[in-house]
């Protein structure tokens, strides 16, 4: 185990700031991967028909994509790393060591992708349609699309690994990864297929909406553009569902059980139907608005464009949230809990205590006394619980223990990983430490008791 200095995010909590970056990245990176594929086809279509207007439309879509992909997509991608770096260094450190060379290859491919994109974008104006130079220019976008899909393929392996690591741990003490098994983890291929088509679907939806905005006074190009991108949207639905189902089959049973809890809030555990209804509602909205755009491109109102974007965007957000949530209590399934503690180190921490292993801890808190008990408890809260809770903001621990006396809290802490709350890791530490944590938690509501 290792212990780093503590960065704690008041009110919003760690998960929130991470989720903010991650969700922005999901939107933009999937648009970029799907967009590169769809744009390559669009260029092919424009060149084949020598269609100047459609070529111009493609450039406008590309321009939007370029700005978003380079300024927001690439940086929030690095941002995921940088966020986890300070939020859960143990986890990202482990992933980096297991996936180092794959990440390195990904970086090289990413270079190819970026260079091709820059060349394609910056030289567009000097290779106009109708000239022989355009054919060479077209090769750039094909290479760009292939490279951007490959980066996604590698990153998906890492995400798959976190959920379904398979038999990756060749030895526990000392921990030795099996590098091939970790790459070939069971959910890699199905989730890659799933993400590929969902990227195409999302990018096509985005391109339809952009077409709507860019062709305000050109009904013909609008119809052509929306129909063109719409075909990609519809074509990706069936493979998306097939891969999605195959992907779902790979989830561990415990994770499947958490699906309805993961979808938005714990309240859905009470009414699992509600999650299903909301999801179906979003799907219906996406279907209706895309059909409106597709079949009545010149008449469709802005509302249809926005509806399509919001519905498909929310569905993607919901999927990512569920995926993140159902992995709980782990960050690497079966190996490391969400709070960075390795499962195999639990016996030691329970025996010797967490404090004994901690590095960034004032000396006066190393031994529990009646005077420092509450302070030690606060430290333990920071060590083990701040990953998912805040004191009084999002998922506030203060509210969670409201109305409980110290003995009750003490008992509850001993059962954090019980089937009532299987998404929490068990408390790690000695009995004395558990009592100190309870002593701290009970003070949170001390003022509001009477």
């Amino acid at each position, binding site marked *: *185990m*290792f*212990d*780093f*200095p*503590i*960065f704690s995010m008041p009110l919003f909590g760690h998960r929130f700031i991470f989720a903010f970056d991650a969700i922005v990245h999901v939107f933009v990176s999937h648009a970029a991967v799907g967009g590169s594929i769809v744009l390559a086809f669009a260029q092919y279509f424009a060149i084949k028909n020598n269609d100047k207007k459609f070529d111009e439309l493609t450039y406008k879509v590309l321009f939007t994509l370029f700005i978003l992909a*380079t*300024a*927001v997509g*690439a*940086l*929030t991608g*690095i*941002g995921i790393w*940088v*966020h986890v*770096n*300070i939020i859960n*260094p143990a986890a990202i*450190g*482990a992933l*980096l*060591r*297991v996936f*180092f*060379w794959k990440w*390195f290859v990904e*970086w090289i491919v*990413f270079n190819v992708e*970026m260079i091709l994109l*820059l060349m394609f974008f910056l030289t567009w104006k000097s290779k106009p349609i109708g000239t022989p130079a355009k054919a060479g220019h077209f090769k750039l976008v094909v290479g760009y699309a292939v490279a951007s899909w490959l980066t996604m393929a590698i990153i998906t392996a890492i995400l798959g690994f976190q959920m379904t690591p398979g038999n990756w741990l060749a030895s*526990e003490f*000392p*921990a*030795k990864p099996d*590098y091939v098994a970790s790459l070939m983890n069971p959910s890699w291929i199905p989730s890659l297929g799933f993400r590929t088509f969902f990227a195409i679907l999302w990018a096509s939806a985005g391109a339809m909406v952009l077409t709507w905005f860019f062709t305000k006074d050109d009904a013909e190009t609008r119809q052509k553009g929306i129909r063109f991108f719409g075909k990609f949207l519809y074509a990706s639905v069936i493979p998306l569902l097939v891969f999605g189902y195959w992907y779902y089959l790979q989830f561990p049973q415990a994770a499947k059980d958490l699906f309805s809890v993961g979808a938005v809030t*714990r309240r859905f*555990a*009470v009414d*699992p139907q509600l999650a299903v209804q909301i999801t179906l509602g979003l799907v219906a909205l996406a279907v209706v608005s895309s059909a409106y755009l597709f079949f009545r491109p010149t008449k469709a109102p802005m509302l249809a464009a926005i509806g399509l974007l919001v519905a498909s965007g929310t569905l993607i957000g919901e999927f990512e949230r569920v995926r993140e949530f159902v992995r709980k209590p782990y960050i690497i399934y079966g190996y490391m809990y969400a709070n960075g503690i390795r499962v*195999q*180190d639990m*016996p*030691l921490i329970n*025996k*010797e205590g967490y404090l004994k292993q901690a*590095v*960034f801890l004032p000396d006066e808190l190393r031994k529990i006394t009646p005077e420092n008990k509450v302070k030690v408890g606060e430290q333990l809260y920071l060590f083990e619980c701040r990953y998912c809770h805040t004191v009084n903001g999002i998922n506030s621990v203060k509210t969670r223990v409201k*109305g*409980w006396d110290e*003995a*009750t809290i003490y*008992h*509850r802490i001993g*059962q954090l990983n*019980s*089937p*009532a*709350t299987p998404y929490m890791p068990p408390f790690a530490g000695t009995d004395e430490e558990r009592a100190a944590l309870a002593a701290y938690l009970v003070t949170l509501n001390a003022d509001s008791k009477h």
Partner: protein
Amino acid sequence: MQFNFIPNDLPLPIPTGGLEAVDVVLTVLLVVAWLVHILFINVLLGASTGSVYFNKRGARENNPVFDRVAYLLTTPVTICENMGALWGVAPLLLISVMFTPLFYAAAIMNSPQWLHIIYGNIAAFLLSYLYKYTWHKLEHRKSLHLAIGTAAVALFLTLPLVFMATVQLYMTPTTWTLNTHFWDALFRADTFFRLVHFYLASFAVTGLFMMIYGTAKRKSDDEVTRQAGDVLVNTGKSWFLLPTVLNLFAGPLVLFHFPSYGIENFFNAGWYWLIILGVVSILGAAYLTIKDFFNPDLSKGKLWSIVGLAFITVLSMATLRHGMRLSLTSEAMAQSKAQSDDFVARSKAASEEAKNAQKAAAVATLSPAEVALEKNGCLACHSADQKLVGPAYKDVAQKGYSDEQIVALIYAPKPENWPDFIPMPPQPQLPKEDAAIIAKWINGLK
């Protein structure tokens, strides 16, 4: 050397396959990738500043050549911001893997400011795109256009503050306390001088770049662009010279502000030869530039001699930078590894002990109802005879419900029955058979 706060190393091997050669490859990659990254960032900072500067001069003096210089400089900005960020990833990846305990600790101490390298960067990127792609639209609203450009430059210039504080902090674990934070690291003399050295170097490197870029633009078919090329070459010379001379003074200040044990290791290992090499070749480059300072036709041969000599300096700086990193961190890394090995050994023993204890423990004989309570998570909040989050089952039994009523209450609790308690969440996951067994068992507790 004993360090007060050094995190354990990760209990997973560094992915070299145990081969010394791969270790060397990682180091070379680190030095090279870092160098490329820094060169891109140097030009990014210099060229974006230069663009705003010439844009303003062009507007004030109504000079289309300066305006062209400014516009020409936006292309390297676009390339350098993208490639610079990208080439920053490789060193970040390598440092994170090779110096995990130190680097992560420093990044966390510098948080949330550490996140500025993402969000500040995104804002700067967007502003710089806005600056570039509104060039013609905002032709007649220059002050707005200049404000956008200045904001982008200002933001880009803040990013090195965060990087440098983190880099300086991870290399000096002797300075860590429980309360070290970003501002402490930023306002230290060592960080300050490194920043000065870095910013100056950025302008010097951009000067070299302008000389190359200008020489290429002199060949353009367009008259204004050709003149812009002349301006770039001339400006490049002074941008290269002045910061270079200043850095001859800033450099030693950087070196002597490192902790003394690091400087000692550095000299003992002979890294100082690289300093000598770097200084000699940069003096050569400066000399050649001065010789042709007023000569408007800088020949190709001279240009590449200057660039070549400067490159030797840059390469030796990048390498000795790694030397200083090793000099400062190898003892801390060794301590981290020792702590970590000790931890793993203790954990292994405890894990085996626990496994044996589990085997030895007699299988407790639980009633089917107790098994069901355990399996369905009821014991998180209830016990048979003790009030916890929920009432003791003994007390529930006193209420005189029928078995069916209890089953119904488990699926749809009525909090008003227990005013002193928080409401119980409904338990839809509980199978019907288990509910019946539990209800019967509760009523048996009377």
